[in-house]
């Protein structure tokens, strides 16, 4: 009896607490909104939009969003691609993926064979259209990632991606091409990620193509949810040699959780 009483009292206290949290969050939200409107009315109305439009002819693209993402603030985009990669590497570091789902039935398989090619073609279209209309690498990559998710749901344990070795190259493609273009421009005296207007369009397209592939593969691989299964997961003789050469006594406090070579 006393047990349930104290339980109900605890539940009551919990309810009071969540009410308090909700009220304070609402007050905070209201205060922030009020401050936001003060800031909004403080002037600086068009902010950077006018300037971004004004400089558009020199960017190599006519879609201002793409100009911001791939030219004015290309360095941010480069680092965002690295964030995506870091997230996937974090997922991979936690262990191998769970085994694949059941093979799909005839109806689902039929739908997949229609939808996936369509997604890939649409992705390619969005990539190209990004130069002058809404679209671009992130949207195209998201469609490729969605294609991967569908393939995975249809029972492919790898979500239609190649083996680990090739997957790693595809994953790094975006940042690699982006960085190499930046450094190449620097080597030719233009400055890091400073595209000469004459080549800007093609350099941006090159970077966007690489980024699309990398984003699509990263999203699909993230959905797989772990290191890809495959022959690469087994240690090779060469690795074994390197391992014994570097061996020192008891390197880990939790030997049970580490796969023994």
């Amino acid at each position, binding site marked *: 009896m006393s047990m349930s009483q104290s339980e109900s009292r605890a539940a009551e206290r919990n309810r009071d607490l969540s009410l308090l949290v909700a009220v304070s969050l609402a007050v905070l939200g209201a205060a*922030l909104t009020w401050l936001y409107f003060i*800031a909004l009315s403080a002037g600086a109305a068009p902010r950077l939009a006018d*300037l971004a439009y004004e400089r558009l002819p020199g960017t190599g693209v006519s879609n201002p969003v793409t100009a911001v993402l791939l030219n004015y603030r290309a360095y941010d985009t480069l680092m965002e691609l*690295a964030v995506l990669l*870091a997230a996937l590497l974090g997922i991979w570091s936690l262990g191998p993926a769970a085994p694949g789902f059941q093979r799909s039935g005839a109806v689902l398989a039929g739908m997949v064979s229609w939808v996936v090619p369509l997604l890939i073609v649409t992705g390619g279209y969005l990539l190209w259209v990004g130069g002058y209309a809404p679209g671009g690498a992130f949207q195209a990559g998201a469609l490729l990632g969605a294609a991967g998710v569908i393939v995975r749901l249809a029972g492919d344990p790898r979500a239609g991606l190649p083996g680990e070795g090739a997957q790693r190259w595809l994953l*790094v493609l975006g940042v690699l091409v982006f960085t190499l273009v930046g450094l190449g421009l620097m080597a030719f005296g233009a400055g*890091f990620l400073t595209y000469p207007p004459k080549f800007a369009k093609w350099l941006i397209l090159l970077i966007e193509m690489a980024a699309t592939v990398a984003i699509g593969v990263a999203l699909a691989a993230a959905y797989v949810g772990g290191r890809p299964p495959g022959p690469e997961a087994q240690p090779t003789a060469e690795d074994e040699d390197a391992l014994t050469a570097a061996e020192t006594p008891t*390197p880990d*406090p939790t030997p049970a959780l580490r796969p023994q070579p």
Partner: protein
Amino acid sequence: MTDPLVLCIALPLLGAMLVTALPRWAVTLGIVAALSTASAAVALTATVWQHGTLHLMLGGWDAELAIALRADGIATALVLMANLVGLGISVYATGYFHDRIRVRSFWPLWLLLWAALNGLFLAGDLFNLYVMLELLGIAAAALGALTGNRDAVAANLRYLLVGLLGSISYLLGVALLYTAYGTLDLGLLAQGVAASPELYGVNAAAMTLMVAGLALKAALFPLHFWLPPAHANAPAPVSAALSALVVKAAFYLILRLWLDLFWPITDMAVAMLPAMLGAVAVIWGSWRALRAERLKLLAAYSTVAQIGYLFLFLPLLAATPPGPARDDLLAALLLMALTHGFAKAGFFLAAGLVQTNAGHDRIDDLGGTAQRLPATTFAIALSGSALIGLPPSGSFIGKWLLMQGAIATGQWWWVIVVTAGTLLASAYIFRVLSRAFGLEPTPLKFVTDARAEVPALTLALVSVALLGLASGPLWTLLGLGDAGGGA
């Protein structure tokens, strides 16, 4: 001239890509990337030394549109520290990780973390800083969970969520500032904030959101709750990076905002709150370190305390008018941050070796460590003396100037905090050392595992000897004016 500025960020990024794509060559490529990044950092220091503060507008656009990179005295000193510590950690890691899968996971994430650190120190744009914070937080949490045991994964999942909360809070502040001033460039925003005292509410709210979010990442008391389990359960090289560098990066950003951007509103009264929290952190962190049962947990709590000291400088800086006295305070602040970076990295690397060797890191059962691992014990003692602030370490000078500043500005109560913190620190360091000696015979070899012991020893030595005895150049670096730099 501004090439090293870009290379400090691009080289580790490139290294991370190659290490990811060619996992079989991870260690070789990783070490090459570490060496070249550290060389770029040295080149950057040399360039700043010769030419003064460097500025670079990426993409060659107007200051409003482009993302700015800049390297002034403070940023350069921290980049140099972070990269030397990073090199030490990299060398140590080649001997620490043996498991093939672990090696392949460590190097890409570590190099991405490194790129984010350098990018954060050198950024001059508020939104770019947010991207760097994200990269730093995700890479750090993934690295911290590499041991794979339940405690580590749970602690680092919490670290990830806390980090995201901090980033979002920071981003809210950035959004407010962009709405009010229409720019993200730190220099232009600083002018805007200084010219608009009528927007006090917006400025203060943005500052509160940004500083609170970053204080969560910097583990300022009472927002430190996530740090001890996350840092103590990570693999040793990762603990060293998290404690010595990642936490410091968040503090660096607070300092930047405080001094460069929000200086018109960060007066004495405002600075009192973080300083008081810092004072509690000094006492509480040191006390918990003294009571810790495990060596790595001790080191983690010691980080909470050491971060606290850095916040004590804020009211002193606010009360001191520009001039030599303020420069001294700033140099002392930097000296403490740098010394802690080297010392804590050395301490964690040595603690990792003790743990590997003994199979545990329970402080009470460490008897005989001094005989079995003399060089490692020496490294712990050296870095410990830097954590205490014994002469000639850099933190001795730092604490001295801190107390001098406190008395000069009439804020004598900080002296009590510093003294108490120092006493507690000597207690927790000597507690470890007293346990480490045993009655076993003296060994024949001083160094037992060069690849692991030399980095720890070098970092510890730098924190004690180099930073203490040769801290003069720091003043020169800080005093360097703005010499323009290249386009």
